[in-house]
C-alpha cells in the first residue's frame, strides 16, 4: 500500500467498497512510519494497540453494514501536548518523560467518536515553546521536504507526519504560530480555529489565553472535516464557545466572488524574504482573478506584536509551568527539603528554552516590573485586537505571508533566541487577537522550499477562510 495519496474521502470510499480494511490501512501506515520515522523523528510514541482496536471497531461496523462516521478508519497523529488516556504524553519534555495521562483531551475523544484511528503522538518543541522543533528533549524533527531543514514549530512532528504521508491528518496546537508556521514550512494546510472554537480540555497548558488546537491535513476538504468534528462547546472548558458548529466540510465550496481581501502593508516590510514576498503577491493576484477585491490596509501596531506576545505568553507560561514540581506527576529528583526537591526537579526536567521563558515570565510579573511590562503588554494587545476589528469593518479576510522566510536550516537560529522569536512575526498578531487563521501552500522557492499564504478572518469565520482556501486550491494555487 502506498500511504501518501490517502484522503478522508478516499478512505471512506475504499472502506465502503471493501477494497481495504481499516486494520490494513493502519498497518500500512505503521509500516511506512517504521521505514521513515528513524530519519524524520516525527513520532515520539506509537499507539498500536489502541489504533488496531479502533480499526477493528470500524471494520466490525462495516461488516454489519452500519453507516460510517465521518472519520471512520482515518489514521491521525496527535501532538504530544494533547492528553491521551493510557498513552504517554511528554510535551517534548524530560519532566514528563514517563507521564501517562488518566484521561483523554476532548478533541481526542471527539476524533475517536468520529471513527478516527490514532496512530501515535508527535514530536514538538518542549511545552510547545519554539519555532523549529529543535527545543524538543527528544531531538529535532527533519523537514520531509528538505531533510537538512527544520519543519517549523512547535507542531513540527504533526506537520512532518502529514507532509511525509505518515498520517492522513494530524492535530497540532497554535499559541503564536505553532500550527501555521510548520504548515508553511512543510507545504501543507494548517488551521488555527477561533479562540474558544475547539475545547482546550486535556491540552497541556503553555499560555492559556493563546493556546488553540487545530488540524493539519493534505487538502482543504480534510482540514474542514477534522475541524467540524473537534469544534463545539465543551462543559469541561469554560472558555469554549457555545456557538453552533457550521458544516464546514459542506460549506467549503461556497462562492468567494466579491469578497474584500485586505493586504496589510506591514506584513511585507523589512525582513521578508524576496521569494516569499513574490509568491504571496502572486497568490493575492490569483485571488483577485478568482473574483476577490483587493484592499490595501494599514495595521499600525503590527510592529509591537512580537514584544507583546513574548511578554504575555511567557507570563502565562511561568504560572502554568509552576505545577511541575515533582509532587503529583512527572519527574521527581529527590532533595533534602521540599524546596530543594522543587529546584532539582525543575533544573533537571526543563530544557533551556523553557527555563528562559519561565524566567522572562517571572520577571515581567514580578513586583516593580508588572506595570511596565505585563500590564503594558495587555494594553497593546487591545490595540492589536482593535487593528483587526477596524480592518474587518473594511474587508472580509486578510491575506499575508505566514512566515518571513521558508524553512531554515537545522541549527541556523538555535544560538540566538531573539532571532528565533522573530520567525513568528506574522503569526503572533492573529494569536493575540483570538481570530482564526489558516496557512496554505502557495508555491515553492527556487530551492524547492514551500511558501505559506496566511488567511486571517474575524472571530468564528472559519467557513469563509476555508472557502477562500478551497477556491485557491481548486485554481491550482498550491503550486503557483
Amino acid at each position, binding site marked *: 500500500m502506498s500511504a501518501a495519496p490517502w484522503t478522508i474521502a478516499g478512505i471512506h470510499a475504499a472502506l465502503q467498497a471493501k477494497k481495504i480494511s481499516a486494520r490494513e490501512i493502519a498497518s500500512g501506515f505503521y509500516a511506512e512510519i517504521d521505514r521513515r520515522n528513524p530519519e524524520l523523528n516525527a513520532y515520539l510514541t506509537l499507539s498500536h494497540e489502541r489504533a488496531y482496536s479502533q480499526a477493528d471497531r470500524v471494520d466490525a461496523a462495516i461488516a454489519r453494514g452500519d453507516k460510517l462516521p465521518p472519520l471512520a478508519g482515518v489514521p491521525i497523529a496527535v501532538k504530544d501536548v494533547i492528553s491521551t488516556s493510557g498513552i504517554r504524553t511528554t510535551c517534548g519534555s524530560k519532566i514528563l518523560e514517563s*507521564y501517562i495521562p*488518566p*484521561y483523554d483531551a476532548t478533541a481526542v475523544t471527539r476524533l475517536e467518536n468520529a471513527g478516527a484511528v490514532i496512530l501515535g503522538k508527535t514530536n514538538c518543541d518542549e511545552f510547545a515553546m519554539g519555532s523549529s522543533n529543535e527545543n524538543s528533549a527528544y531531538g529535532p524533527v527533519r523537514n520531509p521536504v528538505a531533510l537538512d531543514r527544520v519543519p517549523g514549530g512547535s507542531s513540527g512532528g504533526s506537520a512532518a507526519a502529514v507532509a511525509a504521508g505518515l498520517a492522513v491528518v494530524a492535530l497540532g496546537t497554535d499559541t503564536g504560530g505553532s500550527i501555521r508556521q510548520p504548515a508553511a514550512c512543510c507545504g501543507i494546510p494548517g488551521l488555527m480555529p*477561533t*479562540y*474558544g472554537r475547539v475545547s482546550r480540555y486535556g491540552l497541556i497548558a503553555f499560555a492559556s*489565553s493563546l493556546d488553540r488546537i487545530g488540524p493539519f491535513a493534505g487538502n482543504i476538504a480534510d482540514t474542514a472535516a477534522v475541524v467540524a468534528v473537534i469544534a463545539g*462547546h465543551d462543559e469541561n472548558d*469554560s472558555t469554549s*464557545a*457555545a456557538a453552533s458548529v457550521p458544516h464546514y466540510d459542506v460549506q467549503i465550496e461556497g462562492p468567494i466572488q466579491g469578497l474584500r481581501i485586505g493586504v496589510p502593508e506591514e506584513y511585507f516590510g523589512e525582513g521578508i524574504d524576496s521569494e516569499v514576498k513574490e509568491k504571496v503577491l502572486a497568490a493575492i493576484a490569483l485571488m483577485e482573478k478568482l473574483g476577490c477585491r483587493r484592499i490595501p490596509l494599514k495595521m499600525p*501596531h503590527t510592529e*509591537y506584536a512580537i*514584544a*507583546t506576545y*513574548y511578554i504575555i505568553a511567557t507570563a502565562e507560561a511561568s504560572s502554568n509551568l509552576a505545577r511541575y514540581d*515533582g*509532587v*503529583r*506527576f*512527572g*519527574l*521527581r529528583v529527590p532533595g*533534602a527539603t*521540599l*524546596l530543594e*526537591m*522543587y*529546584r532539582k526537579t*525543575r*533544573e533537571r526536567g526543563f530544557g*533551556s528554552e523553557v*527555563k*528562559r521563558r519561565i*524566567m*522572562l515570565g*517571572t*520577571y515581567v510579573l*514580578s513586583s516593580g516590573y508588572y506595570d*511596565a*511590562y505585563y500590564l*503594558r*503588554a*495587555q*494594553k*497593546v*494587545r*487591545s*490595540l492589536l*485586537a*482593535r487593528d*483587526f*476589528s477596524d480592518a474587518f469593518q473594511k474587508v472580509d479576510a486578510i491575506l499575508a505571508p505566514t512566515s518571513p522566510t521558508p524553512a531554515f536550516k537545522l541549527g541556523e537560529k538555535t544560538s540566538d*533566541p*531573539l532571532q528565533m522569536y522573530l520567525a513568528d512575526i506574522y503569526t503572533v498578531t492573529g494569536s493575540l*487577537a*483570538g481570530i482564526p487563521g489558516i496557512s496554505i501552500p502557495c508555491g515553492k522557492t527556487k530551492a524547492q522550499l514551500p511558501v505559506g499564504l496566511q488567511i486571517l478572518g*474575524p*472571530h*468564528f469565520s472559519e467557513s469563509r477562510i476555508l472557502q477562500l482556501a478551497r477556491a485557491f486550491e481548486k485554481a491550482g494555487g498550491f503550486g503557483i
Partner: protein
Amino acid sequence: MTISRDDVLRVAELAHLELTPDEAEMYRGQLDEILNYVGKLQQLDLTNVEPMTQMSFATGETTSPLPESNQEAGTPLRDDIVRPCTVADAVLSQAPDAIKPFFRVPKVIER
C-alpha cells in the same frame, strides 16, 4: 543593561530554578537582549487604553474584544451541580511517591 546578574538569580529563585554560574551569565545576556527588544512597548502612549484581560468573543462576524459578560460572548456557565469525582486512584498512580490517599514529600515542618 536592563537586567543584572543579581536580577537573574532572584528571578531563578522565584521560579524555583537552579542555575550554574555559567547558565546565570548566559541567561543574563539573553534576557537582557530580549528585554531591550520588548522595551519598544514603552514608545506607545497607552493613556485610556484598557488592558485585554480575557478571551471571549461574540459569535457572529463582529470583532468586539471585551464583551460585558461571558454569557453574551457565548461561553455559558454550567449549572452548579455536585457530581462524584472518582479519579483519585488514577491520579495517584502517576505520582512519583504516593501513599493513598496522599502525595508524599520531604518533611516540611520541623519540630
